[in-house]
């Protein structure tokens, strides 16, 4: 992946025990993309929220899509957004 660094934001319900899922996804993205991400922002929220956006574009919402996102979905969005294709 040679494109521009992208920012990932993970908004999770801090009153629902979603920290493990947020941390697992964060860790996976850190290992997969490293410095090719400009930042990973974690936002504690409420109301059963689990949302992931890449450069401001929502790629997963628990309310919209149901459940937690797979790493593959988020990784794919990062590659698409960065313009780096599928090679990382």
């Amino acid at each position, binding site marked *: 992946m040679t494109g521009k660094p992208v920012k990932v*934001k993970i*908004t999770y319900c*801090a*009153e*629902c*025990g979603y*920290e493990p899922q947020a941390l697992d996804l964060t860790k996976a993205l850190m290992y997969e993309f490293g410095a090719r991400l400009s930042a990973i922002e974690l*936002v504690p*929220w*409420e109301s059963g*929220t689990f*949302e*992931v*956006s890449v450069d*401001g574009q*929502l790629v997963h*919402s628990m*309310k*919209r899509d149901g459940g937690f996102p797979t790493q593959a979905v988020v990784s794919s969005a990062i590659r698409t957004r960065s313009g780096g294709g599928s090679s990382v």
Partner: protein
Amino acid sequence: MTLDRARWDKGLTYDAFKAAMTRNQERFAQNEDRVALDPETVGTFASLPQRLRVLVLAEDWCGDVVANLPILGRLAKEIPTLDVRIFYRDQNLDLMERWLNQGKYQSIPVFVFFDENFRELGHWIERPRTVSERRAEERKKIFAAHPEFGSPDAPVDGLPEDVRTRLQAELQKMREDMVGFANAEVQRELRELVSAVAV
């Protein structure tokens, strides 16, 4: 899964649960301090003809646990015949499966009332419906009063940080303002539950 004495004894007492909390301990204590037990609630439980066991499913990260378990805890301090044992939801999924919210959600807290012989008498889950409804109404009002918050149905993800912080403060204030109502509603539902099953 059968609840028996051996399993029951593995549950934590209310005080043991509080001591073992890894987060929200301060909020929990604050909520406990401000619980105003309705004399009608105390009277209802005090007049029950038998000792009740209350199995609780909980986790210390859960907002509804932090809000509502202290009410049961305070009540149990007043009513010696109310025996409370708390089980961590995520370590007792076989218990959780028995009392799913709407048959599918692992909502907590769950309060399950048993008689002395572990015969289930009734259960209570998460929070009163009236509280959820009132919160939804108040939430709509907040969004209506603050167009910068956008749609109440839109992902919060898209809000600028300063706006999101203001929204969070408004929502927290709304919940704080509703504590009295919410606590009264929890007590009303618990009174109605045990009154219906009292033998």
